Structure formats: C-alpha cells, structure tokens
C-alpha cells in the first residue's frame, strides 16, 4: 500500500503546522515550565493528528474509493491508513519535540519512559483517529465532525499520557508508573479489538 503513503503528500503542511503552533505558543507564553511543556506537546500532537486523519480518508468516497475497495479488503485498506497515520504521527512528534526543545529547552529526563509512552500513544491515537476518520468520511455533507466525535473518546489516552510524560519530565514523582503504562497499552488493545470488530460494519453500502 505504497499508494497510501504517496497520497499523503502533506509533509510541508505538517512542518508548517508544527512551526506555526510553536511560534504562537511562544508569543503567548513568556516561559514554559515542565508541566506546560508536556501538555503543549500533546495538544499540538493531538490536534495535528486529527487534522491528518481527517485528510487521509478523503479518497475513501467517490471513484477512488470504489477503486480501492475493488482491489483490496476493507481491513487491508484501513490498516494501511492506520500505518500511514502512525508514521505521520511519529514524524510530527519528532518535529514538535525538536521545535519545542529548540525554543524552550528540553525538560525530559527519563528518555526510555518518554519513548515508551510516545509509542503507546501513537498506536492508540492513530487507531482511534483512523477509525473515527473513516466513520466521519461516511457522513455526507458534514465533514467537520471528527473533533466532536473523537475528543471525548481521546481522554482515557490523553489523561494517562500526560501523567506519564509529566513523570518522565521529573515534574511529578511517582515510582509506580508501570500500572499507568499497562493501562495505556490495555486501552490500545481495547481500541484495536474494537476497530477489528467494527470496521466491517462501517464499510457496507
């Protein structure tokens, strides 16, 4: 499914998005402490993930949609989208991380934990946004529903992720963070199981 990747030719848009949001953030804040750094990082990431997931299902309707569904199964189509969104998210995360570190210093102390949290979060976010983006693409007329549908559902992931990365930044001390990490992975597994079960019913017309 190289075509999926090629069709996502929004790399300049992402770089622009990340840079402009970091600039806005820095013109608004004078100084950013560890907690705010972490929260900003995740908010920038979640907003851009929503944006790119919404765009990535543009081709599921109309002629190109029919073409894709004639050559592959819906699961294949969907999970290639998930993979593409995952890599885009990783790219955005690295960019956001670099930008924020360049402008306001780098508060992360426990890198392994931060990386683990990030990967778990990318999996969850890309699955969730792809599922809801796919659902959103099936609605005629109103396309702006994705944030409405996804943000309340995001909260279990977001709460855990912000807590864990605050720990990794040393702004909060908690030695028993393994339980939180397992919950994050369990939520990921839950989303994966749900998408596997439900994706067939979304594509049915």
């Amino acid at each position, binding site marked *: 499914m190289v075509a999926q990747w090629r069709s996502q030719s929004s790399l300049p848009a992402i770089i622009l998005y990340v840079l402009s949001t970091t600039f806005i953030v820095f013109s608004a804040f004078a100084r950013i402490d560890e907690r705010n750094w972490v929260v900003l990082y995740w908010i920038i990431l979640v907003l851009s993930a929503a944006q790119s997931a919404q765009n990535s299902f543009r081709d599921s309707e109309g002629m190109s949609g029919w073409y894709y569904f004639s050559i592959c199964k819906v699961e294949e189509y969907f999970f290639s989208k998930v993979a593409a969104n995952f890599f885009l998210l990783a790219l955005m995360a690295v960019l956001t991380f670099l930008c924020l570190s360049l402008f306001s210093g780098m508060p992360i102390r426990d890198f392994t934990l931060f990386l683990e949290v990030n990967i778990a979060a990318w999996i969850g976010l890309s699955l969730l946004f792809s599922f809801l983006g796919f659902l959103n693409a*099936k609605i005629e007329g109103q396309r702006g529903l994705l944030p409405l549908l996804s943000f309340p*559902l995001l909260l279990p992931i977001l709460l855990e992720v912000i807590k864990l990365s605050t720990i990794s930044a040393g702004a909060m001390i908690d030695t028993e963070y393994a339980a939180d990490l397992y919950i994050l992975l369990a939520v990921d597994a839950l989303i994966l199981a749900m998408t596997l079960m439900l994706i067939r019913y979304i594509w049915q017309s």
Partner: protein
Amino acid sequence: MQLNWTFKIFGAALILYSLIWGLLIPLKPGVVSVEPRKATAGQNVEIEYEAYNVDYLKDEEIEVSAWLLLDSVRTLQATDIQITGSQKAVAFFQLPYFKESDPSVMSATLVITDSIHGYALLPSAIIIQKKLQDSADATQNPLFTQVQIDYPEGSTFPFRNILKETIRNTYYHVPLWFSMIILFLLSAYKSIKYLRTKKKSHDIWARSYAEIAIILGVLGLITGAIWARFTWGAFWSWDVKQFTSAVALLIYLSYFILRSSISDPDKRARLTASYNIFAFALLIPLLFIIPRLTDSLHPGNGGNPAMGGEDLDSTMRWVFYPAVIGWILMGLWLSELKARYLVLRSKKEEEFMSVWT
C-alpha cells in the same frame, strides 16, 4: 426489553419508599464542634461542645454525661456538665497525668450521652500533651470508669462529622449512576444486536436506552455537585470523578450529534451502532480504572470510605438497596416508553410514505 406492569409499579413504589424514608428517618445525634482542641495532662479543662440532633432544654429531667476515651482501656468521665443552650453544653474534666510509657501527645475521643437521645462521639476531639506526675504531688486521679452507652430507640442514619445530613444523598446519587451504567450497557447490547440482525427496532431501543441514560447521568451529576457543595466546598472542583463522568456524558452527546447528522436511516443506524459500541468500550477505562489510580475526594477513592464500610449501616441498606432496584426499573420503564413511542412514530412515517409513493 418490555417490563411486566407489576415491575413498573414495584419500581415506582420502591422509589417512593426510598424518597419518603430517605428523607424522614432522622440522623443519630452527633458532636459538631469542640472548644478548646488542646489540653495538657494533669490539669482541669472545660470543654465546650456543640451537639447535633439533640435538645437539652426540651426535658427538665434529662441526664447528660460525657467521657473522654484516651485509648482502649483508659476512659475518663466528666466531673460535671453545665447545659448552656439547647444543643450546647460545657463538660468539666480532670485530666490525669500520663504514664511514662505514653507517647508525647495523645488524642482523645469525646463521647456524650444523654437519657433521651442516646450517644454521640467525635474522634480526635481533643489533643492532650504529655505531662508526668511530680513526685511531690501524691494525689492520684481517677482513671478507670465504664462508659454506659444507651442506644437510641427507633431507626436512625449514622452521623458523620463532615457528611451530616448529606449522607442521604447515597439514596439518590448512587442509584442514578447505577441505573445509568446499566442502561448504557443495554444500549451497547442493542447496538451489537442491530449490527448482527439489521432489525430497525434494535436501533430504536439502543437510542432510547442511551437517551434515558444521559438524563439519569445529568441528574447524577447534579446531585453529586450539590453534595460536593456542602462537603467539598464547591459545586465543581475538577475532581477526577467529576471530570471523567462529565466526559462520559460528552461521549454520549456526540453519539446524538452523530445521529442527527446522518440522514439516511440505514446508514445512520449502522454508523451510530458502531460508534456506540466503540464509545462504551472506552467508557470502561474512563469510569472504572483511571479514577482509581488518581487521587480523588470521592467516597471509595483515595482511602475514603464508601459502600459497605462505615458509611452504610444496616438502616441505610434498607433504603439504599430498594432505591437502586427502583431506579433501575424506572430507567428501564422510561426507555421502554421512549422506544415504544419511536416505534409507533416510525410506523406512522412508513404509512405516510406508502400513501405518497
């Protein structure tokens, strides 16, 4: 699921029962405040206290007594009690000297009893500083007395110092949430049924359950907020329980937004059923796992007692369990009414369409 009419009447009767008894049964007497909170061993101390749910001036022949409980063996009776108001009195204590093995500071529980209202106590009412007896002073203080505890007649609810009358919220707030969770579960179940069978009525039932569950959830949030106003000090304090339950309601609001934005009925039923199942699955970590890992003021979290601990005695159980069953039956009944109305309406619409085509 259509309820038999006996269940409906039963549910309504149970709610009525819990409303009447939950509001009418009085609380046990309690101690609201104590002054002073500090004393030194071996001295005389006048403790002025304010009691709750007692009336000392009503009966002339009332016998009031007070004790200080230092630990499991040492109890000290007040030498005299002066009633200063209908709910106020001053108790005089002759505090004994400490033993050498005692810690430097001990806290004592104040117990008050009277011949009409029974007993009440305030844990850690007064903090006593250690002082050993001088060898020159030979007088020994009386230490060992027996506490006579008279239980009040009739049924009462327990008195908790912070909760006071708001303990009654157990009968309204908690059953509302129970009922809401069960209706959300049934809604997800009906959505699964719809995806399996594609029968339109399942979609209607899923929608009705979710709608009534949202109403119960909003009521639960409101009763919780009112309770929080009197115990936590503010209607809304971003406690993790308040936060996640508000988010749960937002999730179901977005379910209805999704419903209203799709015009084709079959597609609407299919997509919203998928969303409903997905949302319910994510509700489980949100409502049941994450609040347990975070500090919360809510009963049942962060070491606070709830449900079967010291906050639910047998009198309360007699009101609480009927209220739970009553609200669940009421939720089922309400959603049944909604679903039957929607089924009738869709039939009418089909008739109307068939006339036109």
